[in-house]
Each structure stands twice: as structure tokens, then as C-alpha cells.
């Protein structure tokens, strides 16, 4: 049997509440600085919560012309900014042949719904006779993928995955499959989300899962999740190709595991997430003992954190107590369909820099969450392999595994 193609990460790009660009984001992660603040993008006086992790340092005009912005909902802007950085960072040289063989797989839960919200507000509430004609092309969830394809002239397989909070990790899993199978020779994969519109925030309020203060994953006094926004992309290519062109290799995307709970729209199971982690480990050829860091799904909701803790214990057994775990959502918020991508970049940088970002805002552990969550302060660690978890509403789980690459 031919050995499976190994897939390298050779470029990273990220924009979120922690900053624009991997260097700025890493600096905040390393410092354990939470970017959760009062919402500024819209008036929250009629919304039951007022905190979020907005990409407040991101200035659209610094990245796009007015004509480009006409065509770009914020979620597509964030995807493009991240993709540009990942491509630039990778130093990849596009040839006509490679352009045809490069895949783009992006995740987004709600796509350009901010644009849709404005258009529907115009006709429903303001009584205007028409909706702006760019509403459809700006709103469609694949707009981010299409914009990346046009920006770089990439004509290979390109599509978008929408599995709520697991969207990005499912996107990585699909990119990995395309590259391993030889259906593509390079891929831009990740996700983006920009959920700050009045209608959507009211819908989140009604779910009663958003914290009024901040996000304290795994803590006794946690009060829920905090919404975030952002975009993050990885440039992926076969290890051999990366080595042949002398590329900087961040890590190996070693495996992915996917599962469905088949249980409930919002209540997680233990077995579904556990199975996704097990499959990711086995797909990557890793034993639980080899994992030196888990970037947890860690939403800070009452339901997720104990369930994820139990799932980790089930998979890792005795090793569960030794594996450092953190939820960086405590800093960059829960960016829904972009969460897995922001957390993948976080995990890769953590392995490369030798520091594990903490769970910020940590007070006192919930007795039902009794593992090592790296409270508040980043920790030096030499990590050989890591997992990044995403578990979506709807019971759809996707976990990815990275293997460190020597600098």
C-alpha cells in the first residue's frame, strides 16, 4: 500500500478580536489578554447582553477599495484578509497548473447574514419597496470561498461547509481529504464569521446561552458563551512539495475525526465528541499519550464544559489528567463557523512558539471540570502533537490533529 500523503501547514492567516495578523494575535494569546468588551458595532440597548469579542482593530478601508467593499459582507472581508496573509506567509508561487490544482474550503455558520439583516430591515420595518440587489451575492455562505478564488485566480475544487460551530474543522477535514487523495495539490482552508447584527443577536439572546459578563470556560461561575467574529485560514500542501520548495513548515495537519451525536439539537453527548477525538487520533496515527495540548471547544456554557471534560477523560484515560487543555474562546470569543480556524492557528502557533495559551478569566474550577485548563497564564511547553476540538449545535463534531514540526 502506498503510504498516505502527509500534509503540511505552510501559511497561516488570522484576524479576530485579538488582532489582525498572526503576530498580533499571538502576542495577545501569549499574554492571556481577553478581547471581550462592550459591543460597539451596534446599539445593544434592546439586547439582553452587551459583551462580545469584536474585531475592533480591523479597518475594512485599510484592506479593500470602496468598489471591493460593495461586494463584500464583513464575513467575506475577514476571510479574504486571512487568506491573503496565509498565502503571503507561505511564499507559495502560483503557476497556472498549481492554480488549477488548488482547493478552497471555507466554513461559515451564517454567511453574510449582516447584509441580509439590513436588506430585510429595509423592507419589513422601514417599508422600503426594494432590497439592495447585491444582497444575494453578498449573503451567500460561499461568497468567502468565491472571493478567495477570484483574488488569487484559483480554479480547483472550491466550496463552503456550514456546520455551525464545527464549520471550520469540517473544512479542514475536507481539505485534508482532497490533498491526501491527490484531488488537489494545495489548499486554502479555514473559516470566517461576522455575526453582529441585531436580529441574530436577539436570536442568541433567546437561546439563553450568552453570558452577561464574560466567558469563563470550565469555571464554577461561568455564565455562558461570548460571541466573537473573525477569519482564519491555513495554506496546506503535501509535505513533500513544501520541503521541495524549501517552505517554512509550521506543523503537519496529521488527522481529522468527525462524528454526529444523533441525539439532540443543542444538548451534547459524551460519546459523539469522544468518538471524533478518537477518530482524529487514529487518523493521525497518534496515541493519546502523545498529545501535549488540547485546544478545547470550551464554550463556557453549562452544557459544553463538563461534557467535553468527560469526553476527554473517556478518550485519554489516565493521560487526561496530564494533558494541558485551554479554551481560547475566553480571549477571542466564540466565532462560530470561524472558531475552529482561529483555534487551529492558535494551536499551530502554540506548538511552534512553545507556549500554551491559557484559559483567560479563570476563577475557580467547576467540580465537574477537573482537568488542567491552564488558568490565566500561558505556560511554556514542548508539544509534539495537539488536538483542536469543535462540537456544533446539531450534534456535529469535528476534531483535527496537528503534529509539531521542528523549527
Amino acid at each position: 500500500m502506498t503510504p498516505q500523503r502527509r500534509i503540511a501547514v505552510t501559511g497561516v492567516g488570522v484576524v479576530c478580536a485579538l488582532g489582525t495578523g498572526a503576530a498580533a494575535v499571538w502576542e495577545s494569546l501569549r499574554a492571556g489578554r481577553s478581547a471581550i468588551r462592550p459591543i460597539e458595532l451596534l446599539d445593544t440597548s434592546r439586547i439582553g447582553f452587551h459583551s462580545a469579542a469584536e474585531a475592533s482593530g480591523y479597518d475594512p478601508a485599510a484592506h479593500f477599495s470602496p468598489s471591493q467593499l460593495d461586494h463584500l459582507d464583513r464575513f467575506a472581508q475577514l476571510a479574504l484578509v486571512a487568506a491573503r496573509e496565509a498565502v503571503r506567509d507561505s511564499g507559495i508561487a502560483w503557476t497556472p497548473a498549481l492554480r488549477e490544482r488548488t482547493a478552497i474550503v471555507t466554513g461559515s455558520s451564517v454567511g453574510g447574514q449582516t447584509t441580509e439583516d439590513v436588506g430585510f430591515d429595509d423592507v419589513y420595518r422601514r417599508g422600503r419597496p426594494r432590497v439592495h440587489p447585491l444582497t444575494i451575492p453578498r449573503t451567500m455562505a460561499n461568497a468567502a470561498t468565491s472571493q478567495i478564488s477570484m483574488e488569487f485566480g484559483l480554479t480547483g475544487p472550491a466550496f463552503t461547509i456550514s456546520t455551525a460551530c464545527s464549520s471550520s474543522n469540517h473544512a479542514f477535514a475536507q481539505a485534508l481529504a482532497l490533498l491526501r487523495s491527490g484531488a488537489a495539490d494545495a489548499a486554502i482552508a479555514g473559516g470566517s464569521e461576522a455575526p453582529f447584527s441585531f436580529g441574530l443577536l436577539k436570536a442568541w439572546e433567546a437561546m439563553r446561552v450568552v453570558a452577561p459578563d464574560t466567558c469563563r470556560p470550565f469555571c464554577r461561575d461561568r455564565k455562558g458563551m461570548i460571541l466573537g467574529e473573525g477569519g482564519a485560514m491555513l495554506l496546506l500542501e503535501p509535505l513533500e512539495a513544501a520541503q521541495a520548495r524549501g517552505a517554512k513548515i509550521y506543523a503537519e495537519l496529521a488527522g481529522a475525526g468527525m462524528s454526529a451525536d444523533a441525539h439532540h439539537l443543542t444538548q451534547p453527548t459524551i460519546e459523539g465528541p469522544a468518538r471524533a477525538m478518537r477518530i482524529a487520533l487514529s487518523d493521525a496515527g497518534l496515541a493519546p499519550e502523545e498529545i501535549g495540548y488540547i485546544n478545547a471547544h470550551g464554550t463556557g456554557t453549562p452544557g459544553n464544559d463538563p461534557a467535553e471534560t468527560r469526553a476527554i477523560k473517556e478518550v485519554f484515560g489516565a493521560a487526561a489528567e496530564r494533558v494541558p487543555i485551554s479554551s481560547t474562546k475566553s480571549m477571542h470569543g466564540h466565532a462560530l463557523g470561524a472558531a475552529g480556524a482561529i483555534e487551529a492557528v492558535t494551536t499551530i502557533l502554540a506548538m511552534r512558539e512553545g507556549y500554551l495559551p491559557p484559559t483567560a478569566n479563570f476563577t475557580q474550577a467547576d467540580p465537574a471540570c477537573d482537568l488542567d485548563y491552564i488558568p490565566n497564564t500561558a505556560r511554556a511547553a514542548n508539544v509534539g502533537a495537539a488536538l483542536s476540538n469543535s462540537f456544533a449545535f446539531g450534534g456535529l463534531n469535528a476534531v483535527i490533529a496537528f503534529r509539531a514540526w521542528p523549527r
Partner: protein
Amino acid sequence: MPEDLAEKVISILASVKHIPREKITLESSLADLGFDSLDTISMLFELESAFQISIPDDRARSIRYVHEIVSGIRTLLAEQSASGSSLESVPSE
């Protein structure tokens, strides 16, 4: 006030395409100005909103030049006032 009408149309086109209005004359064609299909539907939206008219698809499709837009809008405004049909009501903000 035909001059004002033309001026208003040119301003809208300039704003939709993000180009200086000096680049646009009544003789300019939309193609010369670089309008693609998305620019064109955006322009139609802005014209409809500004003049409180409804531009039917069949008339919109035949537009090539700026002067055709101006005369087309003039015709639509005249038709709407002659038929007594009220202009589209747009609630004030």
C-alpha cells in the same frame, strides 16, 4: 428641470461606480464606464430609490447610454404622473 435630472443621474452613476462624476457625460456608455451586471443592478436600485420609480426589467435591459437613462426616467416620471398613479411611497426615516 431636465438639467437637474441629468445631474442627479450622473451623480448616482458616479457614486455606484466610485468614479469622479467628471468622467461621465450624457454620451458615455455604461460599458465604457466599466459597468458590469452587478454595477448595473446596483445603479437601477439607486435610481429607483432616488426617483421613487419602478424601472421594469424589459426597459432596464435596453439601456446602453447615460442619455437613455435620463430620457427613460423622464418618460417613467411622466407616465406615472399622467396615470395618476402615486409615486412609490417611501416612509421618512
